[in-house]
């Protein structure tokens, strides 16, 4: 993950006086009876990479298309740079978009594709040529300038699409699943290049993706969407470590969820009795929920420790079970353990050492699961 420095300059959303570059105010979009985007409000700041993350049909692309001006909100307002965009057609907005299909003009060469936007601004020919060269250099496609799109590979097309969208030096670049069509290796490589280009040019990115890994790598902040609504907005680590709902916890990474009841609720610690776990979950931080309320303790698979011997204090944050499945993934192994209550729990363990066959935990072995009291996240909805 691309860690950013933790001050207000890089995290303008923590500064209440900061001016948002894009402001989405109570935007709703209906197609007939179907509500694609439901009362979404968002602030996006300059130089951010903001990812809209969600499954298919969650409204993320519709929201992006409203920013570009291809769809008009049914209600609500969109402000870019303080200006209401309601009456501004796509060809007058300070935004450019990179399409999921890349939408390269098939009858024009790479150079012509990139210069198309500049020609609309009626710039002098020499300046257009210079800026096309410049941007093709940035995406390392200069030697392909005279090729037609059908003569390029998928990765090259993606670069040209990016160059074309950046050529007009937009303040806001909208990217619709920018890496969706690339294979895994190329995608990882391109993610970092995107970040580099964004930092170099100082453009604000709004990226739509369904790929949580992509969002985690690229984003300064992520807005998780579900059924047309923004469920949570936060930095990648906030979203991963402190999901606000069960949907977010489940959507980002994988998680073990234990339903239970609050039996102790103090400002600095809580205890949850969970029949699903067959024990008590002790959490070393307070939460805001009514005592006796139904809650869920969410624990990430990598935060659970697997051992043959019982931990020193087995009264809390502990369970016993039988290993049912092991998946060896190379860098880590995934274990599925059936605990005594009958629930299956997922645990991942990094393969730090090359263990001999007899040292590894194997199928049908009895094991103990335990975790630190800071690991569980308590969710009320």
């Amino acid at each position: 993950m691309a860690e950013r420095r933790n001050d207000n300059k890089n995290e303008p959303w923590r500064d209440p006086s900061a001016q948002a570059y894009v402001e989405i105010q109570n935007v709703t979009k209906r197609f007939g009876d179907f509500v694609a985007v439901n009362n979404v409000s968002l602030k996006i700041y300059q130089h951010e990479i903001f990812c809209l993350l969600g499954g298919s049909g969650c409204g993320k692309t519709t929201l992006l298309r409203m920013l570009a001006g291809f769809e008009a909100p049914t209600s609500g307002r969109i402000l870019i740079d303080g200006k209401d965009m309601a009456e501004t057609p796509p060809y007058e907005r300070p935004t450019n978009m990179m399409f999921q299909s890349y939408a390269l003009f098939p009858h024009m060469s790479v150079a012509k594709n990139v210069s198309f936007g500049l020609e609309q601004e009626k710039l002098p020919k020499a300046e257009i040529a210079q800026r096309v060269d410049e941007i093709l250099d940035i995406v390392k496609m200069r030697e392909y300038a005279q090729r037609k799109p059908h003569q390029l590979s998928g990765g090259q097309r993606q670069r040209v699409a990016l160059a074309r969208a950046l050529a007009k030096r937009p303040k806001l670049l909208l990217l619709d699943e920018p890496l969706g069509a690339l294979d895994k290796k190329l995608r990882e490589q391109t993610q970092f290049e995107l970040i580099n280009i964004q930092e170099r040019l100082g453009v604000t990115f709004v990226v739509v993706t369904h790929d949580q890994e992509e969002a985690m790598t690229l984003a300064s902040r992520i807005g998780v969407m579900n059924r047309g609504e923004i469920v949570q907005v936060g930095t990648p680590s906030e979203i991963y470590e402190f999901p606000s709902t069960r949907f977010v916890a489940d959507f980002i990474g994988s998680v073990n969820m234990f339903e239970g009841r609050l039996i102790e609720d103090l400002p600095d610690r809580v205890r949850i009795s969970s029949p699903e776990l067959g024990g008590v979950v002790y959490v070393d931080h307070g939460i805001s929920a009514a005592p006796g309320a139904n809650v869920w303790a969410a624990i990430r698979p990598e935060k659970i420790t697997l051992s043959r011997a019982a931990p020193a204090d087995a009264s809390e944050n502990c369970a016993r079970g039988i290993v049912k499945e092991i998946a060896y993934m190379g860098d880590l192994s995934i274990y599925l353990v059936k605990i005594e209550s009958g629930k299956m729990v997922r645990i991942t363990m990094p393969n730090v050492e090359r263990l001999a066959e007899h040292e590894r935990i194997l199928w049908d072995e009895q094991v103990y699961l335990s975790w630190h009291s800071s690991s569980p996240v308590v969710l009320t909805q």
Partner: protein
Amino acid sequence: MRLKGRHWFSKTGLWLGLAFLYVPIISMIVFSFNNSRLVTVWDAANSPTLKWYGELFANDQIMGAAWLSIRIAAMTATGAVILGTLAGLVLVRFGPFRGRALLSGMTTAPLVMPEVITGLSLLLLFVALQQLIGWPQSRDVTTITIAHITFSMAYVTIVVQSRLAGFDNSLEEAALDLGAKPGKVFFRITLPLIVPAILSGWLLAFTLSWDDVVVSQFVAGPGSTTLPMVIFSKVRLGVSPDVNALATIMVLIVATGVVVSAIWMRRQERRRAREMQMAVAANK
């Protein structure tokens, strides 16, 4: 052996089929070089001869009719392409609107409408219009062209529609996004991409107009006799050999057009394949 038998059978079928299609045309071409005035008698002593071709080019009526037909076909094709492209655009682009099914049905109805009925109804319309608003004053080139446009436009609409159906909408959105106004988007992006469909629509409309005789018969007036009408009337008076010569020239023109366009298409395809190979090699 059985295999060989089947081979023999399919070969015979092929040659019979080809003969069925082309023997009449070949005999017509051969007889166009016949010296005899009697169409069915081969004058072996003085043939082949270009006598009828000479007579044909000296015949002002036929030459005039041919020129008229070419003009009408060109105007028809151009008009049909403009209207047909617009109809195709509306049908594909404007999504479901009120009356869409009706418009779609109506643009394609002329495809199955008997030509006699198309011709008759157009004639009635022109006569009624003349009485009501005084236009068209007479039935001439204009009325023939209008009539030809009405039935050939349907073909253009269908060709353009099928081309647009496979068109990625985001191409136009991308152009808008890059700052081009809708009119410019149409001329810089949409039009160049549907040009092949428009060209083939134009050629189709041209040939439809070029050989139409039924509809023309209804809406033509004195002094606006098209080439097919001339041939038709000549044949009714008795087949004269210069018609053979005329038909041979027409076949030749059409065949040349087909062969040239086929070669051009093959070349384009080959070039594309070569470029693709180069691109793949460059990526390695």
